């Protein structure tokens, strides 16, 4: 190791300071505050009052939390078992490079480019009971009795807003596709010569090779829905009742409407633990940490 000269040392420090400052200000200190205050009663005005695990106990006893947790987990499952597989299937289909595949890929990206907010707002129109296209369509084909006030009825609200993100898996498609292009085509060709069908090639050759990228996709998707806030905020605000409440939405409400910072931050800690949990589980499941 070569010794750095004094001036180099100074430069090294100068180059690190801005990033270190941003890190402290926006991650370290807030995280510290979140964790510490989660053990206190705090409204932001008066000093924190230490209450031990009270917030956590209250959270786990509250019905609201159990609903929010249930919805969060339903979304995590939908992300892992529908959103990601759909994205992977689309990428395998696109990889056949049938006519028009580039157009399909470009189109698929558009909902991912416009914000979640815009997408959610669009869907509030689709789901409107009177003028929404979904109900108009159902009426048009004579299925009047299937029409609903999609976002306002307890039975349909969660299902409806799930569809606002569920099928927009362009990021998953994109990363799987780029991984596919890196797999040597020789494997697939020699399998074809041996008489393998395309489906067999997909399932037996490509899918195992895609394991790690699918794992990455699951982490991105699941951690993404844990944080999902805009979609709910724009459409239902968590309602009707608590039907579409999730942890992020619940946290926002506690901060904005009731200044229960200790309680809200305990929810934040739980959110953080859930995200780390998913990462650890996926690492194990998809063997993502192993080099090959």
């Amino acid at each position: 190791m070569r010794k750095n000269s004094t001036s180099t040392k100074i430069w090294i420090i100068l180059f690190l300071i801005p990033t270190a400052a941003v890190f402290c200000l926006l991650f370290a200190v807030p995280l510290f505050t979140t964790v510490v205050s989660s053990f206190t009663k705090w409204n932001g005005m008066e000093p924190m009052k230490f209450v031990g695990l009270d917030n956590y106990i209250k959270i786990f006893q509250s019905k609201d939390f159990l609903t929010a947790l249930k919805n969060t987990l339903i979304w995590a499952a939908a992300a892992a078992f529908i959103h990601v597989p759909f994205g992977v299937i689309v990428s395998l289909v696109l990889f056949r490079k049938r006519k028009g595949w580039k157009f399909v890929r470009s189109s698929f990206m558009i909902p991912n480019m416009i914000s979640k907010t815009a997408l959610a707002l669009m869907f509030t129109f689709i789901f409107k009971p009177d003028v929404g296209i979904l109900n108009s369509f159902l009426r048009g084909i004579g299925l009047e009795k299937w029409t609903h006030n999609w976002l306002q009825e307890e039975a349909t609200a969660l299902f409806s807003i799930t569809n606002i993100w569920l099928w927009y898996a362009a990021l998953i498609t994109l990363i799987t596709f780029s991984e596919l292009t890196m797999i040597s085509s020789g494997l697939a060709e020699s399998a074809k010569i041996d008489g393998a069908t395309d489906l067999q090639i997909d399932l037996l050759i490509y899918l195992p090779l895609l394991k790690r990228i699918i794992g990455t996709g699951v982490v991105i998707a699941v951690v993404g829905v844990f944080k999902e806030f805009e979609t709910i905020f724009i459409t239902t605000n968590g309602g009707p009742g608590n039907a579409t409440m999730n942890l992020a939405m619940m946290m926002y409400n506690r901060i904005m409407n009731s200044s229960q910072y200790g309680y809200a931050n305990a929810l934040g800690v739980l959110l953080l633990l859930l995200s780390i949990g998913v990462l650890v589980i996926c690492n194990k499941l998809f063997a993502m940490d192993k080099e090959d």
Partner: protein
Amino acid sequence: MKKKHKAGKTVFEYAVMLIVVFVALLPVVWVLVSSFKTNKEILSSSFSLPTSLYLGGYKEALSKVNIPARFLNSLIVTSVSTVIGVTIYAMAAYVLARKNFIGKGIIFTIFISSMLIPGNALLQPIFLMMVRMGLYDTKAGLILVYIGFGMPISLFLLRSTFLGCPKELEEAAAIEGAGFLRTFWSVMLPLAKPALSSSAILMFLGNWNELVFALLLTSSEKNRTLPLTMKFFTTTFGFDYSAMLAALVLCMLPTIIVYLFLQRQIMESMIAGAVKG
């Protein structure tokens, strides 16, 4: 038999492609078309084409909210945070990749760990801090937060690029008498251009669409950003659908246009960001 199987597969593949295009474009196209309809037309039939190119919705939307001003706010906040962010992360990434000093690995790991923290979990402490620092309802406050959001992914992308640069170049620069700054600026930075643009694109996109912190950290019209406009319209317009749809089009059009021009770069950045992160 085999032929039949093949035809079935082709049908399946085209069916998937068709569904994807339908799911992706239908809402956008419907909103675009309907925004040129009068409120009455929208209410009477959701599928019909506009009878004439009605621009009243756009006029109404623009008179209710100063959309160009908000667009400008978004542009300022997002560009400034992206430029500052990419610059300081490039500096840190360079040092972390190319220089030897004690604690280098630990510092990098700590910086990168910020990736695990969901921004929402820090909502309240950041809000409080901004109020205390006098940055509540300022563009500077929002810029600061947006700089932070780009940290883990930019550091990661830039560091791995700097790690891959050949050592000889740096040595040659040293022999030529280039100092620390000069080597960084004229030798290393140009080599990292692809990673710099990927980081910038990812940061820009993420922050351009950000809603929660913008909502929480700004209150006056002069600091409101574009995504907030959409929230505003859901609460304000009630039943003036053509104005609401027009506003929605105005909010998403810039993004779609930029996307159509920079498609390849955007896709590459997203792949790099997702896979390396």
